[in-house]
């Protein structure tokens, strides 16, 4: 074999190999039977996460319904649940142009992922189908949109996040009903402290910031801060509502109304005192019922648990956090795969599926559902009760995470313990919290 022929053969082989390799990542992914296959990174089975487990079961139902046309293929993903690493994981995949066809992100993560330019925009699909778009509650897309009207995600839920309370502990402290003002709440806290109990169980992160949002949001102008000016990254200490809320929350720690281990950032540090009935209240979303309240960890506690909106600074000034939570996003650009993605998100926002999800997880539907169907579905009464009550409350506001910068969680966990223990004053705490949280938004 001559040198020229050898060279030609090697070049041709290399070219064929390269073409085969590059071909792996391009074009529509189809099965042997011609189904369009889309990958889902948050549809895996999970014995501990009811949302993932519901997604898995819903994906199986989708596969049955659309057999022959579309099929969801589950990717086992260690970063499927909420974690600090999840955003980085998807950012790396975005840089490699290798995002899954379907996955879920929360509003803060969507804001960060927007910059990669790799997320699919659902706005044209919603515009093309007015009935589908109108089926969602108002503001359901608020935290999921881009600056030019893009819709980066289809919401999976819309929840009111309130405060769980132990009715027996409250009755023992002389309270037949959950307090309706923060002053009453502190009266309750004093009594409970005298009985060796904590008024509220917090964790230094999610639950603590929920209470912070409640204290801010139930003041005039508080909702505007949480929904808007928190994103401006000006010194949050300039806002008197934020200062009052921050100082009041710190005072609860100093007065011993809060569990002593409320700084780790691990929600289990908040759940444990409530489940062991050392703490009378804990703030969290409807999923707390499935993940903690009805588990073997707390037999009989569900029956004596109530769920209430946050007290107010004045009579009649109660409020609650309302969030749309995680949404379905897509990283594919292939036309046929996008058809499958479109079919999937419509399937997931159908009445049957949102009710199935509500039954499985306690999360409330992001779309309007027939009252008769809701009644028939026998949904979790604690969760549905609060979302219905939320419509009549004086205040409704987002969690600080929704519009706050992505660095808020890290900065809060770092600075909050030092502030509570007196190493920082309120001005310095809020100024540094703003600056440190903002560093991720530069």
């Amino acid at each position, binding site marked *: 074999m001559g040198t020229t022929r050898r060279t030609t053969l090697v070049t041709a082989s290399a070219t064929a190999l390269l073409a085969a390799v590059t071909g792996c990542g391009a074009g529509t992914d189809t099965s042997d039977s011609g189904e369009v296959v889309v990958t889902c990174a948050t549809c895996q089975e999970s014995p501990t996460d009811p949302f993932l487990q519901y997604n898995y079961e819903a994906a199986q139902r989708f596969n049955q319904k659309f057999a022959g046309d579309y099929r969801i293929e589950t990717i086992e993903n260690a970063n499927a649940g909420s974690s600090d690493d999840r*955003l980085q994981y998807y950012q790396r995949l975005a840089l490699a142009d290798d995002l899954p066809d379907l996955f879920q992100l929360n509003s803060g993560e969507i804001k960060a992922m927007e910059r990669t330019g790799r997320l699919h925009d659902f706005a044209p699909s919603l515009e093309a189908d007015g009935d589908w778009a109108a089926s969602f509650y108002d503001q359901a897309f608020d935290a999921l949109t881009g600056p030019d009207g893009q819709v980066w995600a289809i919401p999976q839920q819309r929840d009111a996040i309130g405060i769980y309370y132990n009715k027996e502990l409250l009755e023992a402290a002389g309270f037949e009903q959950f307090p309706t003002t923060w002053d009453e709440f502190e009266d309750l806290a004093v009594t409970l402290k005298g009985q060796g109990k904590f008024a509220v169980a917090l964790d230094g992160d999610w639950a603590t910031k929920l209470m912070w949002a409640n204290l801010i949001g139930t003041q005039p102008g508080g909702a505007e801060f949480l929904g808007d000016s928190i994103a401006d990254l000006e010194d949050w200490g300039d806002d008197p509502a934020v200062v009052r809320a921050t100082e009041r929350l710190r005072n609860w720690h100093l007065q011993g109304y809060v569990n002593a281990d409320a700084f780790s950032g691990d929600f289990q540090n908040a759940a444990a005192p409530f489940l062991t009935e050392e703490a009378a209240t804990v703030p969290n979303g409807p999923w707390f019922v499935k993940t903690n309240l009805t588990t073997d960890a707390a037999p009989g506690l569900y029956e004596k648990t109530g769920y209430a909106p946050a007290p107010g600074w004045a009579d009649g000034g109660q409020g609650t956090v309302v969030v749309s939570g995680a949404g379905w996003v897509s990283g594919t650009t292939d036309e046929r795969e996008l058809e499958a993605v479109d079919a999937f998100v419509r399937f997931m926002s159908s009445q049957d599926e949102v009710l199935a999800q509500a039954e499985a997880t306690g999360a409330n539907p992001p779309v309007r559902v027939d009252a008769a169907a809701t009644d028939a579905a026998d949904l979790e009464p604690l969760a549905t009760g609060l979302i219905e009550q939320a419509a009549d409350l004086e205040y409704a506001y987002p969690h600080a995470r929704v519009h706050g910068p992505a660095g808020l969680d890290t900065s809060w966990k*770092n600075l909050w313990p030092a502030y509570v223990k007196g190493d920082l004053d309120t001005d310095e705490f809020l100024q540094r919290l703003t600056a440190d949280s903002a560093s991720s938004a530069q």
Partner: protein
Amino acid sequence: MSVFTRHRPPASAPAPVPEPAGARGADGPVGGRPDGSGPARRRIAARRARPVPGTRIPLGMRGPVAVSLLPGLVLFGTFFLVPFLVLTATAFARWSGLDFAWSGLDNYRQMLADPVFFKALVNTLFYAAASVFVQVPLGVAVGMVLALRPRGWKTLRTIIFVPFVISGAAYALVFSMFYNPRAGLLNNVLGGLGLPGRDWLFDTATARWAVAGTFVFIIGFVVVLVMAEVASIPREVYEAASVDGASTWQQLTRITLPLLRNVIGTAILIRLLVDIGMFDLVFILTAGGPDDATATLALYAYRAYLNGEWGFANAVGSVIIVIGLVLIVTVRRVFRIGERAL
């Protein structure tokens, strides 16, 4: 018979005959002046410059040898050289993964202007000092005692070594429960003794000490190193010392300890290199808080990475590398690692 040889089985091979001081270099007997300097050293250098007969690769074998080296070179290049070059280059750039712009020394200027960087540096050095001045000496002391083979020494050695094989993450979770101010063992014991408890991990006054307390007692690796080294010391040395009337304490401090110089230096070096990159323990216990009281350089770099400041994170990484190099050179010199003790 010395206490150090009493329980030891007889050596299967005779102990090597010590050679006069300075008569051996790193490559074996070389002759020349006892201090190894002068014309003899020049002759050694000249001898080393000539290829050793039989070590040249025959002409026809160079291709296969090169091919056999290729996998190693590819792995080295992929997993060390390329990342190292990327780190070095991007330390001088604003890089978020999406945007890239050369920025000269800006990352280093930003680092030096940031008080959190200095907190992280001080904390990292604090953890390193805890290893050097507590963990290694404790390990050496326990290793020397266990080398005496007291009753139950094998069980003790196993118990001491077990924490070393537990993952840092699991260890951190155990200690986060141990330090828990509401239900943790430490506060419960203190309460039982009538002493006040506190939030050890989230109080700026105690957080750094509490983190150091989780790893300074993981001495299994040092103990095993020391025991192995003590076992290799020729028993004749102790027998000669016994004949000369040296007490056990004198044998311990005048013979064993100096002969452990190499292994102590190695243990310190390994610990220092672990400590300057310390991440998982701190990340799980405190995430660097409160108010950066426990943050390390590695955690500081990780936060920058989370914030999308990849170039800045790599600049911090380059500082960690430089500190590591300085420590390697310093410890090798101070402990004369590699030079024979006998």
